[in-house]
């Protein structure tokens, strides 16, 4: 799997992909409906497999499953509502409804974390900053400067430590022993702990001063070049294309159907005290209700599988173009 994932779903405009994730994660944490949750977990899992590969996904699941089990167990152990009692633990009743509700909450957690894993692959830092740079330019600039400073500081830290070592000042952050292989750490330095602490003080103080002073030079340079003056435009690395518009239209249509079904209560889930699905809007005729339910399931299913389809399309296009060489 490529580390830099840029084809398929990830090649959509960042505003579309960020909006997509907000929508899907929002619906997933909002409604503990078994069908919708199943779609969500399935879509996220397949996308995760496509984006990160089998091995990485398995490792992720190994961490997720125990977490999900804990989440599933907490509810029936501490929540004793529900009409069907299936057993007793420590003198307290365990009900089937609380168990199911716990399982739904666990699915919710898994879906959310899987979607976030995909989010971290698709919406890279530069995409996030490109979208938020238009809404909150100063904050986005601050974050992107800070992210650029981090590796610079870690490098400068090494340089300062080396220079200090040249002066005979050893600091705690130096990992190799100056005595070479002749003296192990303990012998050479046990008595000097205080000294080393003092030296690492000096190193951090130098780094902080250097960081602040060089940054203020940067600021003056930016100011001199007219940062913040009105009428200045910024480079936009992402373009909104017809493909983005199509994807956005599809996403919004699916979302509209799902939201209508959810707000009218036609698609709903209640676990406690008894399990009841799709109870709302009882005034509607049965046909219309069933149609809306089917449409909502279909729309949410399509929504969850949309990135998977984009990835598949990319894969097929790639295969075809390779086979015609």
């Amino acid at each position, binding site marked *: 799997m490529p580390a830099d994932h840029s084809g398929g779903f990830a090649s959509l405009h960042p505003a579309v992909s960020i909006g997509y994730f907000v929508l899907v994660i929002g619906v997933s*944490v909002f409604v503990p409906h078994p069908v919708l949750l199943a779609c969500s977990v399935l879509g996220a899992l397949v996308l995760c497999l496509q984006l990160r590969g089998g091995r990485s996904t398995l490792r992720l699941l190994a961490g997720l499953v125990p977490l999900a089990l804990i989440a599933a167990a*907490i509810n029936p152990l501490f929540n004793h509502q529900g009409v069907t009692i299936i057993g007793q633990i420590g003198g307290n009743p365990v009900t089937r409804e609380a168990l199911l509700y716990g399982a739904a909450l666990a699915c919710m957690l898994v879906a959310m974390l899987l979607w976030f894993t995909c989010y971290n692959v698709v919406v890279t830092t530069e995409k996030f900053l490109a979208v938020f740079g238009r809404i*909150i330019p100063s904050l986005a600039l601050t974050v992107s400067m800070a992210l650029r400073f981090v590796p610079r500081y*870690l490098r400068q830290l090494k340089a300062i430590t080396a220079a200090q070592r040249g002066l005979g000042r050893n600091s705690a952050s130096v990992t190799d022993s100056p005595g070479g292989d002749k003296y192990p750490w303990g012998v050479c330095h046990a008595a000097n702990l205080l000294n080393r602490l003092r030296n690492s*003080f000096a190193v*951090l103080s130098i780094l902080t*001063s250097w960081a602040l002073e060089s*940054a203020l030079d940067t600021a003056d340079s930016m100011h001199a070049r007219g940062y913040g003056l009105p009428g200045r435009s910024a480079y936009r690395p992402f373009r909104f294309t017809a493909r983005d518009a199509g994807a956005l239209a599809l996403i919004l249509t699916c979302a509209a159907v799902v939201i209508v079904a959810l707000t009218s209560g036609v698609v709903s889930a209640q676990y406690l005290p008894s399990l009841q699905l799709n109870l709302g809007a009882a005034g509607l005729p049965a046909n219309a209700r069933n149609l809306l339910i089917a449409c909502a399931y279909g729309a949410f299913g399509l929504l969850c599988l949309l990135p998977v389809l984009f990835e598949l399309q990319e894969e097929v296009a790639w295969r075809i173009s390779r086979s015609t060489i």
Partner: protein
Amino acid sequence: MIAFFTRHYYVVSLILVALALGLFALDFERRRPRTRELVLVAVLVALAVASRAAFFMVPQVKPVMAVVIVAGIALGARNGFTIGALTALASNFIFGQGPWTPWQMLAFGLVGCLAGALFAKNRLPRNRWLVAAVGGVATFVLYGLIVDTSSALLFTQNLNWQTAWPIYVAGVPFNAIFAASTAVFLALFGPMLEGALTRVRKKYGLR
């Protein structure tokens, strides 16, 4: 409508957190911060993120909150919130964004803000031990409470005491280690970092 809001604790609280962060962002943009101010905030965020990255191998033992607290003390409550919130956001670009990001932003921001509110303009004496104690307690109570509430909401959706207390109890050791290490880092490096900040601000004539 009211039933809706009382049923969906998680979503509603997330919306409230997002609203709070949005208001803060709006305030920051409205102020039209000067370039130097912007860069100063970026440097402190970067130092805090680098300090989290440098200690990546030890869980919870991280100087990141100590940096945020000193920044709040030196630059005031408002900047303290900015630096705290942006530190959480920026460091999660490295460690992975997740449902925890907004809560961490709020928690870090509030601790930085509190430090500024208490110590800026010499309201409280900037004694090494007092700063360390207040910083440790603020981290344990404020940060711990917010972050544990977020996991309790995530695990149980509808927050009630019966299902939530095990999560709070499970969080105590983690928060205690984080708070204690914050206090130790503050006691050791706090005055040095604050000294460097004050020196540079004086040299460049910043407010």
